[in-house]
């Protein structure tokens, strides 16, 4: 599992980190973003929708995104 530690970072920084990381992983791989900004869950989900990537799951301050394209 590829983990991006964005704890303590304000939005849009976690989304920027995810957008930079995802093109570097294999299609099908999952990136886990650790983020505690209150907007992170909403904005990572919206980013996946806008960019055609898969929002897999969310837990406590963690969000899993699969590269599908």
């Amino acid at each position, binding site marked *: 599992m590829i983990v991006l530690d964005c704890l303590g970072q*304000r*939005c*849009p*920084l976690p*989304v*920027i980190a995810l*957008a*930079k990381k995802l093109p570097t992983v294999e299609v099908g791989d999952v990136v886990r973003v650790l983020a505690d*900004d*209150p*907007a992170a*869950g*909403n*904005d990572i*989900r*919206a*980013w996946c*929708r*806008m960019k055609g990537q898969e929002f897999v799951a*969310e837990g406590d301050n963690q969000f899993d995104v699969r590269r599908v394209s």
Partner: protein
Amino acid sequence: MPLHPVARQALLAALDDGWADPDRLYSAGRRAGQLLDAARAATAECLNVRPDEVTFTASGTAAVHAALLGGLAGRRRAGDVLVHSAIEHSAVLQAAQRHGSATRERGSARQGYGSAAQEHGKAQQGHGSAVEVGVDQLGRLDLDAWRRAVAAPGVALASLISASHEVGTVQPLAAAAQACAAAGVPLHTDAAQSIGHAPIPPGWSLLTGSARKWGGPPGVGLLVVRKGTRWLSPYPGEDLHRPRPQGALDLPAVVAAAAALRAVLREAATEAVRLSALVDRIRATVPATVPDVEVVGDPVQRLPHLVTFSCLYVDGEALLHALDRQGFAVSSGSSCTAATLRPSHVLEAMGVLSHGNVRVSLHRGTTADEVDRFLAVLPGIVADIRKAAGM
């Protein structure tokens, strides 16, 4: 929105003529009383209601709180549940929080529900309960969920914003009101965004507004309670059954508010066409000239003067300040621009991007040239902020 020139004239005249306490019996007081009655009658005529159904308050927020808490108190025997949409103004959410604990009609796992208002009000929470009804991605009320929610046992009052103050989506007020009528539940509508800009369908029992949103001065709220609606004052005071402003009204401002409303409604139809075309221009141009932008809200069923979009990878506060330096005063629903550091509950309820968010409100003074200049500078500003963030 800047003060309407008619409101300014009326305000200056009323400062000389309406300084006295309208409840006093001396001649200056009686004159002030006449001005208040005339303002009430003019406002009632504009809204197609009876003058004795109209109350002016010290703010739009005060009007919302009086409508909700008084409407709930009046229906105490019927129940203690308040139904409201997920995209209400914070004034409604705060009153709901004061009323009681929250649940939601459509079970969605989205985080952040209740957010700032909920955390704020816990210490003062009442014994009632509030049910929140969700919206779709365009910000439209989930009508099926609304029908279920208002038909449930124990519902005292329902509250639906006439059109979203953040994204402009006009709500299905007539259908929502029908569902309420069928269930015997009175409906409050927060019409602050619509009054003077867009028609408001009938069927509501309580309506609130804010004069500064229609070109009147700040510090004047509007509360309309239709005849036959049970309303009980939530405040200390003598008038238990009739809404009254808390403390003395700013009478010159009330006179100016009524004058502005009349003037704005005379222009409303032509202004709506003009501003709606400018909003269409923004809605079409921004996604074409700025990459990775989401224009949010319903493109058709919307307010004529308001448009909202979110730019990926952009800090909302930085965007707002950069636009301000170019002379554009815009708002944002991004968390970095909120005192609570929480994103807008409206954008969250819709599930749309909350960072890099800009809300543009056009008014009667906005020209096509200004809109074009805004559209010309925006791509460069967004590109600079993204470049600084390494995108």
